[in-house]
């Protein structure tokens, strides 16, 4: 597993996180490759989202280390993690509801250099140019994803499925090196899931590492290169989709009490 300098790997070492007495994540060791789709599955409350929050800076790990290539991300603030190239989406894709879809994406493109009260007055020309370019790029990105029709729709009026696509398009506009997708297929119709799978595969083929959490086992097993199974905060199984799909223990803990067996 060689690691090119521009294609860093995300590694978690002995990561622990507790809320009060509840151990939400315990001793997790993971490596997430670039150019690959890695999936994290597990029943409700297994600690998937907690692990996501710990990686993306929304929660500090109790112990352990998170590294991206040579950079130690442990304890970094969310905006710094995002600027380092590790970008996440959210389970509930609220977006920026008061803005149009195109503006939603432009916000991610404009970057941070002008985001202070002085720029509108001291660097107005640059400001105007950056905004115009960002809006144009936002429309291009929407067109590339086949959702250019949504450009002028207010963020608050998107259907849940479209909101998910906009969420991914926005976070991709940040040009991530590692993309963390929190339940991307939730609330999506079957044909939308197929579009989504193609989209995610394309992202990985461009050299971006993708980590996916999802409940839809069929979607995950079809899409992922590697699957990790989380239960009570610990990784209990790892392997290819075939191995995981045939693992008796996995079937029992993950599929046992839920109705998602037929999700494929």
């Amino acid at each position, binding site marked *: 597993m060689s690691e090119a300098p521009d294609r860093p790997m995300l590694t978690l070492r002995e990561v622990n996180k507790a809320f009060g007495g509840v151990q*939400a994540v315990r001793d997790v060791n993971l490596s997430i490759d670039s150019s690959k789709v890695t999936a994290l599955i597990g029943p*409700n*409350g*297994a*600690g998937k*989202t*907690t692990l996501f*929050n710990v990686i*993306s*800076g*929304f929660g500090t790990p109790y112990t352990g280390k998170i590294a991206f290539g040579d950079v130690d991300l442990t304890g970094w*603030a*969310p*905006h710094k993690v*995002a*600027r380092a190239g590790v*970008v*996440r*989406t*959210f*389970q*509930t894709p*609220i*977006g*920026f*509801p*008061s*803005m*149009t879809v195109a*503006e939603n994406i*432009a*916000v*991610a493109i*404009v*970057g*941070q250099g*002008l*985001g*202070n*009260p002085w*720029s*509108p*007055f001291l660097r*107005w020309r640059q*400001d105007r140019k*950056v*905004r115009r370019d960002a809006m144009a790029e936002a429309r291009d990105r929407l067109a590339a994803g086949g959702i250019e029709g949504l450009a*002028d*729709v*207010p*963020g*608050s*009026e998107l259907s849940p499925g479209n909101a998910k696509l906009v969420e991914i398009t*926005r*976070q991709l506009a*940040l040009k991530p090196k590692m993309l963390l997708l*929190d*339940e991307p297929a939730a609330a999506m119709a079957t044909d939308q899931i197929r579009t989504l799978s193609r989209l995610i595969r394309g992202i990985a083929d461009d050299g971006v590492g993708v980590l996916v959490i999802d409940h839809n086992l069929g979607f995950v097993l079809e899409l992922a290169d590697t699957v990790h199974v989380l239960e009570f905060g610990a990784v209990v199984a790892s392997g290819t989709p075939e191995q995981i799909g045939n693992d008796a223990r996995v079937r029992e803990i993950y599929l046992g009490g839920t109705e998602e067996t037929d999700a494929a």
Partner: protein
Amino acid sequence: MISMSFLATVATLALVYAMATQLLNLEAGWGGMWDLGVAGLIAVGAYSYVLLTSAPDAMVPGLGLPILGGMIGAGIITALVAALIGWPALRLRGEYFLISTFAFAEIIRQLIIIGKDVTGGTFGITFVKRPFEQAFRFDAYPFVLLGITAVLTVVVYLICSRVAGSVYGMTMRAARDNEPLAMATGTSVKSLRMSTYSFVGLLIGIFVGPAFVWFLGALVPSTFGATLTFTIWAALVIGGLGSRIGPVVGALLLTGVSEAVRLIEVAPQQAHLLSAVQPALVGILLIVVLRFRPGGLFTEQKSFARTGTDVKGELKRMRPVGMAAVNGGEA
């Protein structure tokens, strides 16, 4: 009989409120910081201006700076005070930020009362330096002041408009809409809010504080109580939180309606009843506007988007999205 100079005075007050409301809109409407301490910042601006410009041999001695120097100095001092308040207060979310700014405003007022050697205490300061006062006759001055205040209001409007259309304005509205997502797109929400709060302090110190002092002609701490904060908030809610021209219209309407009460002539023994009508009118105006236009007279959607769709219940979605969005529906 309504005198013209009375109308000019009312219009001047309305424009001072219009400036304050626009700046509150920048902070709360676009920045998502629900600040209940506006009166405190205005007090800092007003007192700084007076103390910087008063003559050194006045009853409450000052530095004797020229008016423009006093305005800029007041701006810098107010920005510093805002940074000092914001540093702890901006660590808090939503309601907690609101309560702590309210407390800070009251602390500022109490400090003004206690520090009577510097500020004149409850007795106040009875002489203030006003622009071009010597050059005009006593009865013409209200119109001069109205003109100056109108110019300042236009300047504040232009500043706010430029912010609204900038990358900074866009980032600010994004952080208001969804704080976790703004962070996940690389925005340091903390420093964004900190600089916004100081920026609003700067503008309040330069424009609102001095203009308010010119209008008042004297300073007493009781002017800067919670009533001032709530009047400005009422004007903002009536005009439309997050809109561009709304704050100006809201402030003019509110001042116009509540000052019109003064025109009613009554016997002296009923005068106290009349003064009680004023706050009641503000309340009624607020209720009527919110009943028929929940988002205020003007909406943010109309001010920014080109789609022209009107979203109902603006106030509801103004509530910041908390950590619930990060944690999702489950663990």
